[in-house]
């Protein structure tokens, strides 16, 4: 038995099933991210002190990554538009570009994560806090390359273990800002990964549907596009709150 309104629009809503379903799903996603944004706003508002995003993030890299995601949104639109115009070859080209840009975004994000786990905050016995990359360490000493501050030259510092009161990597446990950073960007990256997998299916084996049911396939790509744009939209807010503010 064929499920009605898979391709045709329902007379009462004017929508085909999947589009209504996708928008309802996106509404639930707004609430999922909304809870986390509310946590961010609350924790930040009532914190006695809050770091600037630039203390922890590479702004040019983050800006480039945002541009990558925005570009992937337009290639997604062009892919869908190619199908509407009956140009399957162009669809594969634009969808392929969307996939590459999505993977590039995740690759840059992974590089950022790796950088955090090579970065330490070191509290010395006199209360001074030094942040930087650990170049080498043994049982008696740590050689730290401190972060450059205000363009000042930074030479490696050799610290005796007895001088160090506390030494913590920039993981989610370092402070509330980094806990929120990893939670929000981690959940966003999982969404992007899901989008990449769906797009990969539509670009590859799933595209066989174009031969049998071109309109239904176009609808599938439209739904995947809605999800992709939503993930882009979430990042549009994550970037300023985590990198710029």
């Amino acid at each position, binding site marked *: 038995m064929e499920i009605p309104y898979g391709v045709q629009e329902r007379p009462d*809503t*004017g*929508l085909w099933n999947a*589009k*209504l379903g996708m*928008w*309802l799903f996106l*509404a639930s996603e*707004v*609430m999922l991210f*909304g*809870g986390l*944004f*509310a*946590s961010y*706003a*609350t924790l930040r*508002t*009532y914190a006695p002190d809050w770091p600037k995003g*630039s203390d922890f993030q590479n*702004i040019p890299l983050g*800006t480039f990554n*945002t*541009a990558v995601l*925005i*570009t992937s*949104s*337009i290639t997604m*639109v*062009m892919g869908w*538009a190619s*199908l*509407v115009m*009956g*140009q*399957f*070859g162009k669809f*594969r080209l634009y969808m392929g570009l969307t996939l590459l840009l999505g993977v590039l975004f995740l690759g840059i994000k992974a590089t950022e994560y790796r950088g955090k786990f090579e970065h330490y905050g070191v509290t010395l016995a006199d209360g001074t806090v030094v942040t930087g990359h650990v170049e080498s360490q043994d049982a008696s000493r740590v050689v730290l390359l401190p972060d450059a501050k205000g363009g000042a030259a930074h030479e490696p510092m050799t610290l005796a273990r007895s001088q160090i009161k506390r030494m913590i990597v920039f993981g989610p446990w370092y402070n509330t800002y980094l806990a929120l950073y990893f939670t929000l960007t981690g959940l966003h990256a999982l969404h992007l990964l899901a989008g990449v997998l769906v797009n990969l299916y539509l670009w*590859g*084996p799933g*595209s*066989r549907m*174009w*031969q049998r049911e*071109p*309109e239904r396939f*176009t609808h599938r790509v439209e739904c995947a*596009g*809605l999800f992709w*744009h*939503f993930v*882009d*939209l979430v990042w*549009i*807010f994550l*970037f*300023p*709150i985590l990198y*710029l*503010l």
Partner: protein
Amino acid sequence: MNHPTPIETPPREPGRDAAFQKNLRASIQVFIALLALLVANVAVSYAGLGRSQHIAVALLISTLQAVLAAGVLMHLKSEKRIIRVVLVFTGVFFAGLMVLTMGSFANEVTASHVH
């Protein structure tokens, strides 16, 4: 992998095609606007504004980007009424979630309130 043979979609009405081309051009304009607003947001972060002013301007720019992306790239501006209704409800619940979460901290329980 065997690539499917390209086939033509059913013929479209001329008026609808013109509207479609117009929407496509709008999408490209929005793409350029999104990149320009991204640059503006980064530039504002180096402008030396006070913290609360900076938060307000940055969120305003992001909201503008979100409106453009949702309105044009996700076709919300020409979408059916039921979807806009669903999103209005979502917005109301989202606002409630934010207000209730933040408001819960505004009403601290102190020792004098405990009986």
